[in-house]
Each structure stands twice: as C-alpha cells, then as structure tokens.
C-alpha cells in the first residue's frame, strides 16, 4: 500500500526526505549544542581567563594602600585572599595598622602584564605571574617607583578565585 502511494506520488517522497533531513538537522543541532555546553576545553579556557582577571586585580589590591583610608584598603586585602594568606592578614591587621599610621604612606600599583602559569580546574588551584609598578608616597620626599615581579597562588572559592599565597619572584636564584 505504501509502495504504491510513494512511487505514484513524488510530493510524498519529497516530504519523507524533508522529514528525515529535518529530524537529522534537529538531532545534529541538539547534539552539537549539548556537546558545546559540556565542552571541557571551553570551560577550562574560561577558567583561565577568570583566574588571570582575578589574579591581576588581587595583586593590584594587595599593593594598594592609603594610610588615610586604611580600613577600606585592608578590607579589600582580606576580600582578595583566602586560606593561610587570609588568616595571616587577619591576625596581623592590628600591628599593621599601627605601622602604616606611623609611616603615613600611600601605595598605588599598576599591573603591567600578567599570565597564568598553571591551572588545575578540577582542584580549583592556579598560579599567576604578574609584572607591576608600585609607587610609594611618604609624607616627605619624592614618590618611590619600583618595578616588581610577583608570583601568586589562587584558590577557587564560592566567591570566585582568590589569592592563597603571594610573594616576590626571587631574583638570582638560578635553581629556579
């Protein structure tokens, strides 16, 4: 019965072909969309960019402090960090406040360039290297400008990537 109809009716053949093509297109599109959403390399690339943005901002924050707005600056330090580094900052805050109030310095930082050196997306750990220029202004004398190079470790938290370790990249340590 179907054979009789299809051979005798070209529009039906066209319709069946169209239906198969349409179903195929929908299936292919659906698979492609699903695959893209579960594409690990796309998620990894996004995580890398997030790490760099968070890392550069955090390093800049950690090198910026105005004695006249000390609480705001130190709150930002604490917001930029997690883990041991965060704990150290909280513990040492009172002593540090006294020190900066006495010195009355203003530090500003400009990130010149940064790169992600390692990223473990699953473990939520990453490393960044940042070149920056720090300007320290004391109540007397000319502002001191120094180029600085830093290495940071970041850890993923529920509020995004935060610094868990930060230090100057060693100079003259040829073992590295």
């Amino acid at each position, binding site marked *: 019965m179907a054979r*009789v109809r299809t051979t005798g009716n070209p529009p039906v053949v066209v319709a069946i072909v169209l239906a198969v093509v349409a179903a195929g297109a929908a299936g292919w599109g659906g698979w492609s969309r699903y695959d893209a959403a579960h594409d690990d390399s796309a998620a990894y690339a*996004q995580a890398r960019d997030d790490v760099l943005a968070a890392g550069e901002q955090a390093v800049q924050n950690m090198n910026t402090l105005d004695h006249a707005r000390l609480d705001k600056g130190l709150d930002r330090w604490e917001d930029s960090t997690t883990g041991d580094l965060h704990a150290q900052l909280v513990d040492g805050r009172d002593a540090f406040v006294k020190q900066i109030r006495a010195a009355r310095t203003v530090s500003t930082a400009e990130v010149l360039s940064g790169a992600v050196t390692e990223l473990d997306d699953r473990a939520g750990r990453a490393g960044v*290297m940042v*070149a920056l220029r720090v300007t320290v202004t004391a109540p007397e004398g000319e502002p001191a400008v120094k180029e600085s190079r830093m290495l940071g470790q970041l850890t993923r938290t529920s509020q995004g990537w935060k610094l868990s370790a930060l230090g100057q990249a060693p100079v003259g340590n040829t073992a590295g």
Partner: protein
Amino acid sequence: MTPQETGGTTTTATGIEAGTEAGEPAEEQPVAGEPPPRGRSNLLRVLATVSALVLLATGGFLLSEGQRLRDTPATANRALTDTEATTRVIGDVSSALAKVFSYSPHDTAATEEAAKRLLAGEALRQYAALFGQVERQSADQKLTLTSQAVRAGVTRLSGDSAHLLVFLDQVYEREGRAATTAAAQLSVTARLRGGHWQIVEITSR
C-alpha cells in the same frame, strides 16, 4: 470500520464502478490507494511541512548555539588549553632570550649569530641597533652577561602568534669584580616560522 466507511464518498463511487466491471467484492477496492478527502489531505500536508520547517529551524538554531558556545574569545586563545603548544612556545622563547641576552668578550659573534636566527621584525631591528654598543662595552669592560628565563607564562596563543610574559635574571660579571644580578620583566611577541618560534617584539616591563 469497513474500507468503504474510511474511504468516504469517493470509495463508494469506485466501489460501484468496480462492482459493475469485474464483479469483485467492494472490500478490495481501497487497495488502489484512493487519496483521502481533500480537506484532510491539505491539513496533513500543512502540518507535515510546518513540523519539518520547525525541526529544520530548531536544528539550525541549536547548531549555531553550539558554535557560539564553542567559539568564544576565551576558546580562541589556546594558552594552557593546548598544553603542547604552550610548553613549546615557552621553551623556544626562553631559550632564545637566554641566547641573545648572554655574551662574553670573546664570544659576541656567537650571540649576534643567534640573534639573527632567533629574532625577527622589530625585535631584530632594536637588537641590531643595540648590539654595536654591547659589543664595544663587552670588550672594553671585559663584561660577561648571562641571562636566564626564570619564569614564563603565555598570555595569548593562536596558531602562529603568541604573547608571553617572561621574568629574566641577568648576571653581570666584570673581570675582578663580584657578579651582580638584575631582574628584568619582558613582554614578548613571538611568531611561529618554519616550526620554530621567533621573537618579533620585546617590551621591557
């Protein structure tokens, strides 16, 4: 339901015709495949066309969505996502910087030779302008410079172009004096030529 009933009015007409000609029972006639009634047939056709178009459109939309998700600015940058290429460019650039920024009074020719091979474009022009000075200084002051890339990271990587940040340690040794170490931070642009990364631009940070 009997065939006559499903066939409707047209079937009844054929049934009469067949019956009169061949004397066969009317039940067999619908096998000839009489078209269903006009109205219903049109409705089916419209429904089939619409659903085919909807399926096609859905497929097309999902396909473009998938493409959009895959081709973001983040995925276009292959730094770290392509570990092999990332390691390769870091290795090539680090070793190139160590070679062109290392020289001794007896060996400036080797450094110049390396520079011609490892640098290109703007970087080579800058280097050539600087090198005459370096050669004289090295000979006059018996100065030896040894550079080493202590850390390098790739900021941006595409098929044949890369941007890197390199932390360089530079040890200066003058005959009869203690060595001093200086830190340099360089932004480097490199291009892949003939399977090797050449440095085309260096900016001191």
